[in-house]
């Protein structure tokens, strides 16, 4: 479920935790890897992805949101 954190790149700076207004990362302890506490609240605004200085976050689009195309 979105977002997906690359723990190899993540430096535990918590910038993603602080920027997410939906508070998907609610209750992540300071200095830890971000915890995806409420993945269902993600709005795919990409704010955490853009905020991450390490490029450690990607949003996986759930199957029931994938585009239908020819």
């Amino acid at each position: 479920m979105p977002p997906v954190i690359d723990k190899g790149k993540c430096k535990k700076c918590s910038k993603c935790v602080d920027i997410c207004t939906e508070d998907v990362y609610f209750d992540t302890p300071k200095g830890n890897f971000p915890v995806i506490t409420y993945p269902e609240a993600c709005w795919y605004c990409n704010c955490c992805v853009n905020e991450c200085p390490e490029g450690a976050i990607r949003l996986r689009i759930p199957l029931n949101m994938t585009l239908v195309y020819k």
Partner: protein
Amino acid sequence: MNQSMYEADVLCVGGGIAGLMAAIRAAESGAKVIVAEKGNALASGAGRAGNDHFQCYIPEAQGPDIKPFIQKLSSFRGQLRDKKVAQVWAETSSEIVKLWDRWGIPMKYNGQWEFAGHGFPGDKLDHLKYSGKNQKPVLHREAQKRGVQIVNWVMIVDLLKEGDTIVGAIGLGTRDDKVTVFKAKTVILGTGFVTRLYPSPINGRIANVNFPPTVTGDGRAMAFRAGAELVGLDMPYKHQGPKYFARSGQATWVGVIKDAEGKPLGPFITKPNRRYGDPVLEKYPTLFEDVAASGKGPVYMDCTDISPEDYEYMVYFMEHEGYTSFLNYMSEEGIDLRKTPVEFGRYEIRINGGINTNEKAETSLKGLYAAGDELFGGIANAAIFGWIAGENAAKFAAEKKTSSLDKSHAFVEEKKALIHAIKTREGGADWKEANFALQQLMQDYAGSIRSESMLNAGLTHLRRLKEKAHHFLVARNQWELVRCLEVLNLLDLGELVFVTALERKETRGGNVRRDYPVTNPMLDKSRLFVRKVNDKIVTEWIEIKD
């Protein structure tokens, strides 16, 4: 539960575009300003990821005649706007656009004022294309420069009054177990649209809506509870865009809306056109239903015939409109809009109506202002009327004495008791259970097709549900508590949708009444208002003045 108190001349509820613009203007007018924001004001509200259309009138670009622009602003998706509001919008917009440009939000494209989208060939276009990706950080910076105090992670749950006058608001920590009383001479509401009232068309994803799922009509609900007048809640509207991936910004697409055989579905364009997009999406409200019924579906957005320059233009503005996750996803999946048409669909019902405000951004309550999506405003309204609200609120505050409000106000204690109950109950319904119950009820009894008997049955059930929610909602932590309070706001608004829909005994726009199929011309110039008087819901039709 901890408790604290803040004091300000002007309290802005919500740190979106409206709230930040109001804060900036109020602060430079000399007021002590606080912005209370549910999340982080750097990335909150519908404009957080960007925008690329600003509805405005710039005389040097659009010609000397302002009248057609006022006329266009006088209605929006089947709803009428106050004439003076439309006039002030048109007159003030140029100044605000230039202000944003100076602050570093690029309002020109290749050095020119560029108007495109939300119009049709021959129409006077009034949507300025701008590069709004950085708009929130810019406005946040400007607010901080002027000494605005931004208090993040606080949800305003209700307004405080003394007699008929607003004297502040009650805030709840969205991360910490804390209640904050804001003592303020004036309050400006800028909490945005109403999502999560009707079910998302995508199964199992309550947050898959084209406005942020944390904008839940909090402003409308608290304004109503405080006695302010709301308008137009009965009129349903459905937006459209990429099917299953709910996004706003349909007018950013440069393509042709076609059926399964590749035949254009509208009369406007046959080849991708960057100036108009495909206006059929906005001009044909039952397009998707009609195409499905005709057996010619699905409906596609077809950009395959786009020129390389127009493709670059579209993708550039998609990025500024806040489509970055969408663009990343398409790139990862190898979906190329130049090679394949993608399906479009209609999203859930939403209510465009909201808090009634005049040209000064005043509500019907003294000391209470509102702007932006509190009343089907959009980004331009948020910017312009946020600014106007800030200016007028600061003036009002300068002449007003400080109230005697203290933090043990009876209403604060009542709210604290409710919050405490939700957090400490042994068992009951969580926010999602209550939210889903409300959504299915809204969809089935106050959907696009309505009748008196269905509306009455639905209203009875909603009132039972509301009563139960107050007594059985449970939250395991602060995050869930906030969602519970949002659901209680949505229940209040749902009730108003039913009450006002019962009053509209006609078919108009998206409101189809099986028992009243005629569009009543006697209501062409009227708007339906609702407010609380002595704990009763009162509706009133008022004709728009010329």
